[in-house]
C-alpha cells in the first residue's frame, strides 16, 4: 500500500513507519511529502463525498502534521514553496478555536502557508498581519457566535479601510451563511474546513 493510501485510510503508525523507511532508503523527501499531500487530497475527496466526517479530517490532519514534522526539515528551500499565504483567526469576542485550527490544518495540508493570529483576535491583529505579509491574498475569519457578527463586519471594514482591497475574505463557523456574508461585506463563506481549501485555491 502506498503512503497516500495509508494516510487516506488513517493508518497513523503505518504511515509514519513507511515515511521513516523511505527516508532511510534514500527516497527524495519531496516525493514522500507529495505522497502525503496526495493522501490528504484523498481524505478531502472522501469528506466531500460524505464518506469521511470531521473526526476523520482531524485524524488525517494529525497524521499529516506528525509526518510533516519529520519530512519538512529535510526539504530545504524546496519545502518553502507554497501555493500561497492565508491570514487566519477567530474574530474579537469569540474564543472558539477548533474550527479555526481545523481550517489551519487543512490549509497547511493543502500546501498553504498560514499566518494564524489566534482567537479573540482584535481587528488590528488581522490588519497588521496582512500588512506584514503583503503576499497574503486571502483572509479567513472564523466566528461561532451570532453576537460576534459585528466583529466580523468591523474586521472586514478595517481591512478595506486599510487599503487592502486585493485581499479576498472568507468567513466560516457554525452560524455563518450567505446572510452573514451580506451583513459583513466578506467575499464568501465556507461550510466546512475542506471548503476553505477549495475556496482559497480559487481565490489565489
Amino acid at each position, binding site marked *: 500500500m502506498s503512503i497516500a493510501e495509508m494516510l487516506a485510510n*488513517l493508518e497513523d503508525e503505518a504511515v509514519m513507519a513507511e515515511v521513516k523507511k523511505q527516508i532511510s532508503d534514500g527516497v527524495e523527501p519531496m516525493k514522500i511529502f507529495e505522497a502525503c499531500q496526495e493522501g490528504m487530497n484523498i481524505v478531502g475527496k472522501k469528506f466531500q463525498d460524505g464518506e469521511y*466526517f*470531521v473526526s476523520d479530517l*482531524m*485524524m488525517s490532519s494529525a497524521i499529516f502534521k506528525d509526518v510533516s514534522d519529520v519530512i519538512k526539515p529535510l526539504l530545504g528551500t524546496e519545502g518553502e514553496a507554497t501555493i500561497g499565504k492565508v491570514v487566519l483567526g477567530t474574530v474579537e469576542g469569540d474564543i472558539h*478555536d*477548533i474550527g479555526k485550527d481545523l481550517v489551519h490544518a487543512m490549509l497547511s495540508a493543502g500546501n498553504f502557508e498560514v499566518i494564524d493570529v489566534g482567537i479573540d483576535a482584535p481587528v488590528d491583529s488581522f490588519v497588521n498581519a496582512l500588512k506584514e505579509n503583503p503576499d497574503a491574498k486571502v483572509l479567513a475569519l472564523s466566528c461561532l457566535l*451570532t453576537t460576534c457578527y459585528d466583529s466580523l463586519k468591523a474586521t472586514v471594514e478595517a481591512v478595506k479601510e486599510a487599503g487592502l482591497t486585493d485581499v479576498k475574505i472568507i468567513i466560516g463557523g457554525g452560524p455563518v451563511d450567505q446572510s*452573514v456574508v451580506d451583513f459583513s461585506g466578506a467575499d464568501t463563506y465556507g461550510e466546512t474546513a475542506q471548503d476553505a481549501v477549495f475556496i482559497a485555491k480559487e481565490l489565489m
Partner: protein
Amino acid sequence: MQTNKLYDERLELYKKTIKFENERPSTAYGGPATPAAHMGMTIKDYIFDTKRGFKAYIDYINLLNNEAPVDVINTPYAGLFHIPISMMWLSKVKAPGIELPDNSLWQVMEKEMMKVEDYDKILEQGWAEFQQEFLPKVLDMKDLQKFIEYQMAEGPEQAKAMIDNSYPLVNSMGFTPPFEALCGARSMTKFFMDCYKLLDKIKDVQDVMFPVQIEGALQAMKQSNAIGGWVGGWRGASGMVSPKIWDTLVWPYMKKAGDKLLENGFIPIFHLDQNWDRDIERFLEMPRQSCILNTDGMTDLKRARKLLGDHVAFMGDVPAPLLSNGTPETVSDYVKELLDSVGPKGMMITSGCDTPANAKFENVVAMYKTAVDYK
C-alpha cells in the same frame, strides 16, 4: 405544585404533539440569553443578578406570548449558567464580567483538562470518585456551592412562577452522555484522536461512567418533579464522527439515556446540534411516539420525516443567523417551508439550538406567529 387551566392545556398539547394528535404545530421557547438585551440588561447582570434576571426572562417570554402563544419552555433561565455548563462539559467556562466583557456570552474554553492516563484512573477509581477529584480543575468549588445554594433558594420560586405564568418547563436538566463529557474534558482534538487509538478503552470508561451519570440525572429530575430533560448530542453528531465511533461510543449511550428517562416517566428531548442525517433512522429504535428530536437546522427534517414517519416528534429548527440577521418575512417563510415539508402534526416550532442572544424580537415573534397561524 398547584397548576392552572392554561398550564394544563399547554402540557396536554405538548403530550399530544409527541403523539401526533396536535391540531396545530406547538411552540417552544429556547433562548437562555435572549431576554437580556431586549430587557435592557447586560449578560453579566442577567446571569448573576438572578432575581432580576429571572424576572427579565419571564417578562420577555410574556412579551412574546402576548404576540403569539409560547406553549412550553425548552431552556430554563440561565442563572449562574457558566457553572452548570462547566459541569456538563467538564471544561472551564469563561463568564461575562469575570474573564469576559460584561455583555459577552459565556464561552467554553477548549483545553485538555483530563490527561490520557486518566482513562485508567476512571477504570480503577470509578466515575464518582474521579469526578470529585477532577471538578476542581475546571470549576471553583465555592462557585459550585453558590450555585447549589442559589438553586435551593430560588429554584422553587422559579418553578412556581413558571407554573403561575402557565409555561410548562419541558427540559429541567440536560443529560450529557459520557462521550460529550469526555470530549469536553479531553478537548475535542485530543478526544477524537483517542477515539481512533483507544476505542475499546474509552468504551470501557463510558460503561463505568454511564450508570453513575444517569442515576444522578434521574435523582435530580425526580426531586424537581420534571416533565422531561435533554439528552445532549453535539460533538457526537453524525456529521462529526465516523460511523464506527458513533455506533460504539455515541448512540448506545444516548439510547440508553433516553430509555432510562422513559422508564422513570420523563420525556426525553434529544438535543441534536450539527448534522444527524446519516444516522437519523436509528431513532426508530426508540419507542414509538415517546420522545422528541430537537435539531438546529443542520439536520434535514424533510428527509427525517420521510424516514421516521410519525414515529418521533420534532422540535426545531429555525437557524440562528435567520433570527439574528433575518427579517420577520424571511423567518416566516422559513417556518412555512418547514411546516410544508414536515406537516403540523408532531411538530414544535422553535429556534435551532438556542435562540441567539442577539435575536431580533420581531423575528422571534414571527417564528411563533407563523407556527400558529399558517394553514
